[in-house]
């Protein structure tokens, strides 16, 4: 039954931009796919394994920069750059996490935040990749290989959907696998997991690698969609925070969580930007912040927790009336 809900979501998402052909709406759908997928990727290390990362923008940026630099300097297809970026992000995540996983709880979270800022600063002062000026991706004719489409947003949407589908399926299979089991045990009690023979470092590193590689894929899509990147955009704290907030709002450690969270936050931020322009900047985050406070106070398991509770109550009522 649970699978049916998931496939319904996939079907609905896929159909929407064809039913509502408004360009603005299609843009919102693409951003939704990118951020829902980012939340799903982040959920693997934070939701499942309980290691809070405040620095996922680092991997997003690495993905964006790898494909962009390769295309800009050498004309390499962004598809190749996308895969390479995922690989580099995985390697960087291991280098960063190996020492950081000695830290527990808040200290790990702070370390990820610091590392992401350091990586941003490196790119700001790195002349080879145009430093703070950023890179405008050379515009070429519509082509699948160059991942550029100027006439319609639909191809970007379809690529985004494919990534979304892939990432949700990966997250789901991890959740259902033995590895997902071990990650949850580590989250629940690091000590007990270790005492039972689980090697926590191994599984945390594996989860981190998968999470960051998937995150990097979306960096490439984002860069190709916007056609311009600079370190302040793709390595920004705002992106790291959005990923965290939307997943927490939707429900941490649950594959539906980031989808629900992104479905609320992304339209909110995109439409307030459209309707209020520059003056409205930040209003989405204010509304969002208020939502988070409410959720944190009344339903720490996020919106999905709320839905589950209601489902249970209804189930209980149903059982009663049938008794």
């Amino acid at each position, binding site marked *: 039954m649970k699978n049916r809900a998931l496939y319904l979501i996939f079907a609905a998402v896929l159909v929407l931009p064809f039913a509502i052909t408004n360009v603005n709406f299609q843009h919102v759908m693409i951003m939704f796919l990118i951020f829902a997928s980012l939340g799903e990727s982040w959920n693997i290390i934070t939701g499942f394994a309980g290691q809070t990362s405040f620095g996922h923008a680092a991997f997003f940026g690495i993905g964006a920069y790898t494909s962009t630099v390769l295309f800009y300097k050498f004309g390499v297809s962004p598809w190749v750059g996308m895969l390479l970026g995922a690989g580099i992000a995985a390697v960087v995540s291991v280098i960063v996490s190996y020492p950081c996983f000695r830290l527990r709880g808040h200290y790990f979270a702070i370390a990820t935040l610091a590392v992401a800022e350091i990586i941003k600063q490196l790119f700001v002062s790195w002349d080879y990749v145009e430093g703070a000026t950023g890179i405008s991706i050379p515009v070429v004719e519509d082509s699948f290989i160059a991942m550029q489409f100027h006439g319609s947003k639909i191809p970007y949407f379809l690529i985004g959907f494919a990534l979304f589908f892939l990432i949700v399926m990966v997250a789901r299979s991890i959740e259902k696998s033995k590895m997902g*089991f*071990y990650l*949850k*045990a580590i989250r*629940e*009690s690091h*000590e*007990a*997991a*270790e*005492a*039972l*023979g*689980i*090697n926590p470092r191994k599984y945390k590193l594996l989860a981190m690698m998968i999470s960051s590689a998937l995150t990097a894929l979306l960096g490439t899509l984002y860069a190709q969609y916007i056609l311009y990147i600079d370190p302040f955009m793709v390595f920004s704290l705002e992106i790291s925070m959005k990923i965290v907030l939307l997943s927490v709002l939707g429900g941490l450690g649950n594959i539906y969580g980031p989808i629900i969270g992104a479905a609320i936050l992304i339209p909110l931020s995109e439409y307030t930007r459209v309707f209020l322009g520059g003056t409205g900047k930040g209003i989405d985050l204010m509304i969002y912040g208020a939502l988070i406070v409410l959720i944190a106070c009344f339903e720490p398991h996020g919106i999905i927790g709320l839905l589950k509770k209601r489902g249970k109550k209804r189930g209980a009522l149903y059982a009663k009336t049938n008794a």
Partner: protein
Amino acid sequence: MLKVNKLTAGYDNVPVVFDVSLEVREGELVSVVGSNGAGKTTILRAISGLLKPISGSIEFMGKRIDKLPAHEIVKLGIAHVPEGRHIFGKMSVRDNLLMGAYAIEDDAEVNRLLDRVYEIFPVLKEREKQKGETMSGGEQQMLAIARALMAKPKLLLVDEMSLGLMPLMVDKALDVLKHVNKTGVAVLMVEQKVQEALEIADRGYILQTGKIVAQGTGQELLGSELVKQAYMGM
């Protein structure tokens, strides 16, 4: 089977236990007793690899284990029931037990172990689908022991089992431990409840501020002046 030799261990290089030597033989139930802060937990953590010893050696079945990481030590056959139980609260009872069999790859073997554990702890079978955190303290302690048994240990380390349990449950838990021991699993337990722990033990050690001050059979120790004066107020 377990030989701890001149173990000094502690935290951040500040020793908590000094030159502790103790032994567990095949099939024995050994109690280490002492008051709060004596270093009992530190000894167990050093044996199971959760803490690296400062000096001294630990041998299990003739093999040095003091340099091995915790997850390797479990594979050799030492299971640790940590203080405060540390069950996985958000997981079902069954999943908690399955986690215990982490190192066992043969699924049929895991199912056999599960059946055996359910035989010893029928209450866990009843609560199979319930979340760990929704059980009472005593049941959680049973779950922690059962989970450790799922690893098919040759030696079970049990830390402060009586903590936070009502007296009736303490007796019950000790009975279970004795039963487990009779099935051939050696047990090393540390306890604050001196009398109860020595009564069921084949042998015991008394730990005071990080040093072993007396050892002998459970009965010998119970009869000793030291125990009578220091722990029973006689």
